[in-house]
Every structure is written in structure tokens, then in C-alpha cells.
């Protein structure tokens, strides 16, 4: 059977180029034009390269120093399974409506890729999106009781308001438009 080893190489290179280097051209190079993409939190699959670009941009806009390491990679037939973890991830840009907190986060993932003819045909991105929100102090951490959660959310809303105010004042001072939203902020930093 040809392919499994090559497929692993394709997937490893894809993840390193996109997530570590922010290299969006890797998506053009490696992913089929009509690839099926299953993104975290989305219940419906999407088609094409655009959702993948959006995903990488959003992550790297929020965490520009993101570094990931592949911990496990294996495959069968046209499937490749990859377990990766972040090794560096500082929140220094807007992420999910959260102005930069300067905090350090961590993310873990187990993704599945379907590869045929040297191209990625389908991706199931499966990662712990809740973890980073907890590390940034936006979602209560594990093990809190409900009253603890409620107190946490109250202080979180206050903190978010303070961060948002500081962020928009800073932008106004620099003469930029306030409240850009994630998509525009992502486009701003899309240098390649």
C-alpha cells in the first residue's frame, strides 16, 4: 500500500506550516479545492479552503507566537490521525472578541485527515477550544461550584469591559478604528 507514510508527511508539514509559520499558502498547496472541513463548535461541515484560512488566521491573530508540537501521528488507509499540543501560546491579539490579555494559554488537539492523491480531501479538526478561554480567564476553570462559577462570571464580565475599554482607547490613540471585530483584525494581520 502506498501512501500512508507519505500522507503522514503531508499532514505534519501542513500543520507546521499553517499553525507554526502562519503560512496560508500551505492550504493552497496541500488541500483539495473542494475539501470537506469540519471545524470545532460547527455542527455542519464546510467546503473549500476559505474556512481553513479563517481558522488559522483567527488562531494566529490571537496568539501570534503560537508553536505546536506533534506528539503522535499514525494512519490507516487514507486516514491520518494526529495528536498535537501547543508549546507556546501568548494571547497578544484579539481572539473571539477578547481583547489581548497577555496571558499564556495551552491547547491540545486530536485531528483526523483524509488524504488522497497527495492532497487533503477532508479534515476533522477536533481541539479543546474551551481550554484557552479558561486560561485567559473568560470561562470558569474546572472544579468550581455553581456559586463559584457565578462569582467568576461576574468578575470576568467586569474584566472584559476593562480590557475592551483599554483596548479601544489604545486604538483611538494610535488613530485606528475601534472595535474591529475578529474577522477584520484577522485580515489586518494576514501578512502570509
Amino acid at each position, binding site marked *: 500500500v502506498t501512501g500512508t507514510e507519505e500522507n503522514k508527511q503531508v499532514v505534519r508539514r501542513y500543520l507546521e506550516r499553517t499553525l507554526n509559520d502562519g503560512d496560508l499558502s500551505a492550504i493552497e498547496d496541500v488541500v483539495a479545492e473542494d475539501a470537506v472541513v469540519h471545524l470545532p463548535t460547527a*455542527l455542519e461541515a464546510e467546503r473549500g479552503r476559505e474556512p481553513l484560512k479563517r481558522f488559522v488566521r483567527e488562531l494566529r491573530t490571537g496568539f501570534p507566537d503560537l508553536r505546536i508540537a506533534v506528539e503522535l501521528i499514525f494512519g*490507516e488507509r487514507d486516514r491520518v490521525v494526529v495528536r498535537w499540543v501547543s508549546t507556546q501560546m501568548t494571547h497578544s491579539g484579539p481572539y473571539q472578541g477578547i481583547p489581548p490579555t497577555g496571558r499564556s494559554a495551552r491547547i491540545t488537539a486530536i485531528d483526523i485527515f483524509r488524504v488522497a492523491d497527495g492532497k487533503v480531501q477532508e479534515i476533522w479538526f477536533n481541539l479543546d477550544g474551551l481550554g484557552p478561554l479558561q486560561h485567559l480567564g473568560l470561562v470558569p476553570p474546572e472544579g468550581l461550584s455553581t456559586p463559584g462559577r457565578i462569582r467568576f462570571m461576574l468578575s470576568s464580565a467586569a474584566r472584559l469591559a476593562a480590557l475592551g475599554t483599554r483596548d479601544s482607547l489604545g486604538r483611538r490613540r494610535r488613530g485606528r478604528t475601534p472595535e474591529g471585530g475578529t474577522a477584520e483584525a484577522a485580515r489586518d494581520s494576514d501578512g502570509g
Partner: protein
Amino acid sequence: MGTVEENKTYALRIFECFNSGDTSYLENELLAPDFTLYSPTLLEPGGTREVVDFVHSLHHGFPDFQVEIEDVIAEDDKVAVRFRSTSQTHLGPYRAVPPTGRNVTMRGVHLFRFRGENLVDTWMEIDALGGVQQMGVVAPTGIGTLARIRFTLASLVRMAALEARHSIREGRAAKAKQP
């Protein structure tokens, strides 16, 4: 070492335990003494106790919990299982969220590593963010700062109301049980 096909069979049996909520097969047969669990919900890697707690808390939070396996991929001593919940109504407290009554769908991939007839490592990765968004307790993906603040405040009020309702019900149930 077990064969790839044997390992797949073990992996399917693990999911039968997740669905039934009965962990005796895991505790008494499958898990190696040095079994290790890696999950984002654990600050440090866990062992047998953490897996048992995981299954029980799932069934406590979602009494109708059932998942469907969508893909199984194996090589050497490792098996990956991709799944999606088909029935998962939030009727009990789960991870400090009082029951919302909502029906959620969670997707995930778990990885298993076997040694002979034993499971030695498990890596769990569930789309928990998708789940808590569906419960309405965490803001949806792609929201702006102001909307996030509004959401957090509204969610706060809702949590307090849900918690109050839950406590009242628990109190009534406890009273009803008294002889």
C-alpha cells in the same frame, strides 16, 4: 502484542462502557495497572479513577447519554475513534453547570494505546466548547467584545436562576425520600 483487529475490538468495547455507564469491564479487565488518562479536563494525567469518574459524571449530567462511532483508525498498538453523541440531554449538573434541559451534540476523537490485552494510555479530546455553547453558558464562536460582555451578564442571571431551580428540585426530592 495484540493485533490491530483485536485492539479495534477493545476500543469498541470501551465505547459500549461509555454508553451503558457500566465501568466494571474497564476496572476489572481492560485497564493496565499503570494506565494513564490524558484529558484537557485534568490538570495532571489521571488513572483508573479518573476514567470511572468521567463515565459516571457523563451519565449524571446526561442520563440519556449515547454516542455513535463514526470512524475507527488503527496502526500498531494505537486506535483512534471518532464519535458524535446522538442523545445527550443536559438534565443533571455537569462540570458545575446546573441542568439547562438542552439537548446537545458533542463530537470528539479518543486515542487508545494497548499493550497485550490491556489499555495503557488514553487521550481524550471532545469539542467541549461546542457543547457548552449549545447549553448557552459560553458565548458563541466569532462574537465581538461588547456582545461577549452582554452574553456573560445574561448568562450569569440565567445560571443563578437554573441553580435556584435545581436546588429547589433537589430539596423536594430529598424530602420525598424521607420516610
